[in-house]
């Protein structure tokens, strides 16, 4: 580990930018604020690149420790940053994509009431994200983890007095509610993350001399030769599962994915940056970061990969029928994150992280393209009211198409390489607890790939192809192409979506650079004996998945090409299925009925109105009333008549005398 003194600038530049935007922003022109914010993130990117080259040349991780944050109970926590191969990938992706999206936002947000607020939040987000991926221990990571949640909350609710628009045109959820939902659901995940931290501290603290038990390097060293003696596998599995609870919240996996579709209430660049490219991948990053735990626990691997697979399929089915362009992309994101978890769950960390990277490119591109469409369509998001936009927005169309092909997994676009690597690893994966897991997950993944190709081309078909359906909503205006600040990032991302795949070629074709790069940073499963699969099988699987993707594309084109009556027929043939999918399996409704409403009504009706007011205060007031009643009764003795008092005096004296005489007769 090599100590350097500049890593803190990666988060600090955006932080400075956030402060400057907040303080100076109101007095500056929108473009100037945007430029300031972009430059700050760009500077951060530059530092990341420099660090990347230093890691590449030195073949070792970099570290900067700023100061000791706190020390108590034997536990020591530094504010420190770690820049190893894994952080490098994340840092480059995050700061790079962020720079592009900042640039894009200059045009997008120019006419808003307070662009400075937007850029301030956005820079703050990059700051938090940088903390998350660069933190050299779990607590600094947790700061970033919560920080990105906060920024997500702020940015989803950026237009805090507005509502989402349902495809039918009626009001949907309030933006601020969507933000709150995101934060609260994330907190449920954080609950698991926190408990995992506690369990790690309690378990490993006695084994660490200087108390820096939350440092990744320390933990990794402890786990180097397997689970340390005295610690059961159960504990490691529990830690992994608790961490994964945190990941499901942040990375929108079952059952905590519900916030992400609603997070589309935020401005589109936010959706692209936070809810597609960077923040939602934090869970994947975290699992990869804690790989040394996950490789020990087959149970945890199974759960992570299984949840990932289930989410991939589940979200894809919902994505099939959504009408809001951003909602389709949101469910697509959930689904793709599922693929990443399949990858990291099966300890194919380079595959998972590589899919994270390519996904960051093409999904950011998709969202930015969608933003361009929405911008050009004057804030219309219903794809059934678009169509034929290819003619009006050529650049947006072509870049969007590149990203769509990439996500569908067509050779030689980036998505093909990353998704195929995951599926290949799944096919070969062997789990001790459930040996068939690899094949099942592979099959699910393949089905998901079919659906992905289908819904993405459905989206393209309805948006860019076919007849123009937008005339009634635009009232005679025409869609227009976006300014260069918006299309330039599209172009750059399109190039990356096309070309990035070559970094991780299937090993039968050439060296997997990405895998080699990540190898020192993540743990690896010990090779399983007797489980060989030849190049023929790999070729076969590749062709199969290409064929599946092609099938999806072809059927989507067939369905939606020329406003064919087929979709309508399908909808009519299976109305129940369509409604269930369109209403997202009623999961939100289920949570609302099963959790939120009972909790609120019990709190209000029982805990507050009954228990607090009646039982506790009732007891107290009852005591007071009892005292009062006694007083009322005893008050009757105060007749005001001298004789009554005299009689009482005599009675008292008499009682006293009898008492004394009794004592005397007892022989006192």
């Amino acid at each position, binding site marked *: 580990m090599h100590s350097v003194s500049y890593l803190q600038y990666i988060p600090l530049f955006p932080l400075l930018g956030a402060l400057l935007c907040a303080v100076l922003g109101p007095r500056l022109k929108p473009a100037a604020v945007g430029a300031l914010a972009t430059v700050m993130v760009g500077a951060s990117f530059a530092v990341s690149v420099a660090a990347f080259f230093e890691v590449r040349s030195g073949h070792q991780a970099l570290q900067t420790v700023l100061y000791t944050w706190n020390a108590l109970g034997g536990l020591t926590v530094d504010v420190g940053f770690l820049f190893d191969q894994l952080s490098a990938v994340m840092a480059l992706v995050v700061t790079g994509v962020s720079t592009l999206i900042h640039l894009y936002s200059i045009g997008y947000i120019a006419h808003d009431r307070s662009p400075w607020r937007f850029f301030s939040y956005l820079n703050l987000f990059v700051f938090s994200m940088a903390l998350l991926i660069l933190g050299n221990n779990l607590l600094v990571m947790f700061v970033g983890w919560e920080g990105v949640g906060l920024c997500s909350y702020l940015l989803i609710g950026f237009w805090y007095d507005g509502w989402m628009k349902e495809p039918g045109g009626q009001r949907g959820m309030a933006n601020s509610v969507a933000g709150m939902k995101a934060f609260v659901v994330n907190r449920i995940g954080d609950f698991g993350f926190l408990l995992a931290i506690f369990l790690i501290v309690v378990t490993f603290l006695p084994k660490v001399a200087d108390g820096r038990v939350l440092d990744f390097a320390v933990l990794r060293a402890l786990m180097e030769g397997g689970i340390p003696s005295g610690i059961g596998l159960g504990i490691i599995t529990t830690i992994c599962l608790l961490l994964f609870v945190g990941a499901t919240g942040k990375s929108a996996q079952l059952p905590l994915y519900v916030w992400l579709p609603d997070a589309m209430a935020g401005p589109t660049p936010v959706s692209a940056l936070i809810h597609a490219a960077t923040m939602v991948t934090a869970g994947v990053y975290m699992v990869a970061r804690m790989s040394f735990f996950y490789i020990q626990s087959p149970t945890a691997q199974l759960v992570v990969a299984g949840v990932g697979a289930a989410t991939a399929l589940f979200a894809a089915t919902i994505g099939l029928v959504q009408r809001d362009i951003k909602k389709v992309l949101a469910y697509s994101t959930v689904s793709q994150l599922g693929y990443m978890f399949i990858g990291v769950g099966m300890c194919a960390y380079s595959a998972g992280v590589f899919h994270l990277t390519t996904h960051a490119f093409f999904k950011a591109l998709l969202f930015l393209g969608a933003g361009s469409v929405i911008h050009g369509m004057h804030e219309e998001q219903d794809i059934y009211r678009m169509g034929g936009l290819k003619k009006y927005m050529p650049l947006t169309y072509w870049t969007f198409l590149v990203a769509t092909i990439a996500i569908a997994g067509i050779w030689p676009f980036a998505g093909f390489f990353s998704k195929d690597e995951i599926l290949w690893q799944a096919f070969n994966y062997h789990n001790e607890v459930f040996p068939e897991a690899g094949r099942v997950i592979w099959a699910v993944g393949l089905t998901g790939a079919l659906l992905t190709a289908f819904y993405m081309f459905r989206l393209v078909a309805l948006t860019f192809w076919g007849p123009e359906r937008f005339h009634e909503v635009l009232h005679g205006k025409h869609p227009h192409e976006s300014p260069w600040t918006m299309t330039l990032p599209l172009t750059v991302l399109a190039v990356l979506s096309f070309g990035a795949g070559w970094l991780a070629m299937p090993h039968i074709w050439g060296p997997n650079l990405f895998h080699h790069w990540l190898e020192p940073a993540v743990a690896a499963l010990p090779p399983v004996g007797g489980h060989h699969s030849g190049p023929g099988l790999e070729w076969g699987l590749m062709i199969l998945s290409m064929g599946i993707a092609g099938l999806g594309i072809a059927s989507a084109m067939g369905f939606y090409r020329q406003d064919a009556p087929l979709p309508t027929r399908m909808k009519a043939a299976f109305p129940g299925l369509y409604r269930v999918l369109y209403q997202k399996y009623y999961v939100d409704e289920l949570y609302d009925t099963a959790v939120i409403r009972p909790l609120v009504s019990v709190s209000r009706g029982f805990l507050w109105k009954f228990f607090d007011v009646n039982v506790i205060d009732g007891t107290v007031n009852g005591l007071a009333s009892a005292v009062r009643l006694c007083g009322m009764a005893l008050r009757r003795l105060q007749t005001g008549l*001298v004789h009554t008092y005299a009689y009482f005096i005599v009675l008292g004296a008499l009682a006293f005398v009898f008492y004394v005489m009794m004592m005397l007769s007892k022989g006192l």
Partner: protein
Amino acid sequence: MSWLPELQHYVLLATALFFIGLIGVLTRRNAIVIFMSIELMLNAANLCFVAFSRYLGSPVGHLFSFMVMVVAACEVAVGLAIIVLIFRERRSVNVDDVNIMRW
């Protein structure tokens, strides 16, 4: 028990006196008579003091009886003044008519 008056005789006499006073307080309604009954009780106490003083050969009992007289004098003076006031107010010295301290 000889007929010669001894300590016990005086104490018994004082006791009888005291209880006559007590019965007066309990049975009479006239405030002035009640006051007089109280004087009887005080005198019973005085008698005891003096008797014990004689028995112990110490003059302290005498001194105590003076104190009692002082208190009795003050009490009678103030009490009778109050009775006069009440009488002016209510045209009655019957204690049953005076219950303004009720509840």
